[in-house]
């Protein structure tokens, strides 16, 4: 089956109900999909990450905090009065804003997103206040998450800087610097607005187009390229496994291995982010010794773990692809690098392409990684 998405060319549109995709002149992508969602929708707006240095590490995170409020700090009132909720998230490759809610709130959700993206001044005292909030946020970050950040930075260097940033760097930010950063982040290049749910695709796409087409295209600012890690590494507080790009069948097998292990060792914490680029899957532990727990789990019987892990990974996949929230999330983070990405085809490929033996191989690799 030829996906309608593969036929899309810049400046043109292809409509095959119930999906519609627009490629805007400024480089942004708009995607709307109608699906049964119990009278609800999920909207995601994603912007590319721009490279950070040691001096600016965390400024994007700080910008995400401030932008999410809107110029008049009325975004949350607007959204929540309609039973919706705005989530803002900073990843290594993107900044993501999502709103989910009842379908009759879609127009309000786009209006709220427009406030988030509005070009505005950031007052220095507003920035300083938010830096204090970031320090509070950091205090709540669990040890497993911190260990995962360390693993990424150790294995990928500048290409693996944590999305959170450093407090020392954000303390150097001021209002002018953040406005300048916003002008580089909130651009058409690398931007995606995507919605799925009980919406009319053409109307929704046109509305999202109006939201994004006013943005400048922006200049190319490529991120440092991550090369695949050749093998797993057991750090003191986390175990890092190479995670293939999301469209590689090894993605689900690696996830399945980790899920199998965690299904019999409840204290383990799995961390990974689907990406078009190679990355890491980290397994941390509340006990601080994940390698020991992984060894113990695998000793119980790799066959059982492979089966449990495969089932868990496929259940995760089915729930992700089956929900409006999951579909918008996947498209938002993957469409710029994988223009032909389609969640249903991806699920089909993963379901057919991942067998218990693949998870067993990933478990064997994990076992080698944690051997004393």
């Amino acid at each position, binding site marked *: 089956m030829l996906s309608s998405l593969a036929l899309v060319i810049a400046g043109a549109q292809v409509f095959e109900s119930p999906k519609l995709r627009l490629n805007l002149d400024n480089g942004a992508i708009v995607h709307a999909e109608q699906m049964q969602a119990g009278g*609800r929708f999920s909207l995601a707006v994603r912007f590319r990450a721009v490279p950070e240095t040691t001096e600016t590490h965390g400024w994007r995170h700080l910008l995400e905090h401030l932008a999410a409020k809107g110029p008049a*700090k009325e975004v*949350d*009132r607007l959204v*929540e*009065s*309609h*039973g*919706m*909720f*705005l*989530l803002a998230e900073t990843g290594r490759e993107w900044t993501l804003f999502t709103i*989910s*809610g009842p379908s009759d709130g879609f127009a309000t959700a786009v209006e709220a997103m427009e406030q988030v993206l509005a070009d505005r001044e950031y007052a220095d005292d507003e920035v300083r*206040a*938010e830096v*204090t*909030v*970031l*320090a*509070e*946020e950091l*205090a*709540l970050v*669990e040890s497993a998450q911190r260990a995962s950040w360390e693993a990424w930075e150790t294995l990928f260097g500048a290409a693996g800087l944590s999305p959170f940033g450093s407090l020392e760097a954000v303390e150097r930010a001021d209002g002018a610097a953040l406005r300048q950063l916003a002008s580089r982040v909130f651009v058409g290049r690398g931007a995606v607005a995507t919605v799925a749910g009980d919406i009319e695709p053409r109307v929704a796409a046109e509305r999202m187009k109006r939201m994004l087409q006013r943005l400048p295209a922006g200049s190319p600012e490529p991120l440092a390229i991550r090369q695949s890690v050749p093998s797993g590494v057991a750090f003191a507080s986390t175990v890092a496994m190479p995670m293939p790009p999301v469209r590689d069948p090894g993605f689900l097998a690696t996830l399945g291995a980790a899920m199998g292990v965690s*299904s*019999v060792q*409840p*204290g383990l914490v799995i961390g990974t982010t689907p990406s078009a680029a190679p990355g890491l899957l980290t397994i941390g*532990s*509340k*006990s*601080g*010794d994940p390698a020991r727990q992984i060894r113990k789990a695998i000793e*119980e*019987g790799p066959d*059982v773990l492979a*089966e*449990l892990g*495969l*089932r*868990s*990974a*496929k*259940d*995760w996949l089915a729930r992700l692809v089956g929900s409006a929230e999951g579909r918008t999330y996947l498209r938002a983070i993957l469409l710029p690098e994988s223009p032909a990405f389609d969640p249903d085809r991806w699920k089909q490929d993963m379901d057919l392409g991942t067998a218990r033996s693949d998870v067993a191989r990933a478990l064997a690799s994990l076992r080698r990684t944690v051997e004393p």
Partner: protein
Amino acid sequence: MTVALAACLALVPRADLRVVEFRDPDARFVVVQAWAKAPEGADPAAWRVMARCLSEGTLEFSRESLLSTAGQTGQPLLIEATDELLSVTVVLPPDGLAVGAHLVASILTQPRLNERIINGAVASLKSEPPGAWEAHLDGTPDFSKVRARDVLALGERLGNPAQVVVTTAGPIERGDGSAAFSGRFKPRPSPSQPIRAQQASPRLSRQEVTFVELSGPVLDPADAASPPMALAAFALGVGKDGAMHRALREGRQWSYRQESVFWPTSKGWRPRLVMARRASTETVSPEQMADALRPEIDRWEDGDRLRALAMAEASLQGRLPVNPFHFSASRRMSDSLASRAAWAGYLELTGKGALGTDTFLELLRQVTLEELKAAARDLMGAKATAK
């Protein structure tokens, strides 16, 4: 006694097993779930150790077969405990109701408890401190003084039908759940060991984060004061336009995370207003937190009431990421079948089974702005804790 949820009625407590049936013809799975109350006065630490042991197998199922059978759909066996409650959830294919009932009954009535398993559970619980936020909500006890015989004594009392509610949910017909559990919970032999009186066991705390909390009385739908109190908790601490976020985070930068939580007790949900704060900063007392919130409450207009109602409706539909209804420290209400089953089963256990989400929302809609403000002010004078 069987309760079909569509016609859920208040129940007269009886000694036999209560079975709640929840029919969803479109569901891809069946959920079989049990809620149990801890015996009066049970040591919370021993109770949680016992709960951890339950996944180690039963007299009928080895650990491996238990995990494998319960994990058929990819959603693993889930056993959770708070100080007063325990829940067991299995999610199985649509034809798995009888198997699920067998598993759940076996876990509750024939747990494999021995000194080796108990010691292993103590060791793993001691080595896995929960996150700071979860630890505060849950009041994680110190497990180092738990004795095997105390856990065994609790195990002998587990599965007492008077203290258990089971819920079956999914593409099932009326009477299926009751039939699946027929004869599964038999009267258990008289316990051979007394339970140890509740210990004043120390609670573990994290050094880097402190918590400030105001909490209200357990919600009781039969009490006219409860709906305003519940809506006040939404207005104060659910959403980023709530008073806590505005006053404590945006106004004073005291905290990154501050929320209203409806915490499950054996008698019903208790509203808790919780703020996390770095330990390295100046201490904030519960009174200071209340003082910061009072001007917000005074400023509330009808738009605030409507926002709170919108948040309540989204929460009761299981659609809010910051849903205040908790089933445990790490599990909030969602729109999953297991979560909907949990709402029904938990409320049945607490004697408030007639409280459907629609009924509850209707009660909240009737709260006036002045009632909302009065209830919120009452919460400001409520029991306060800081640790």
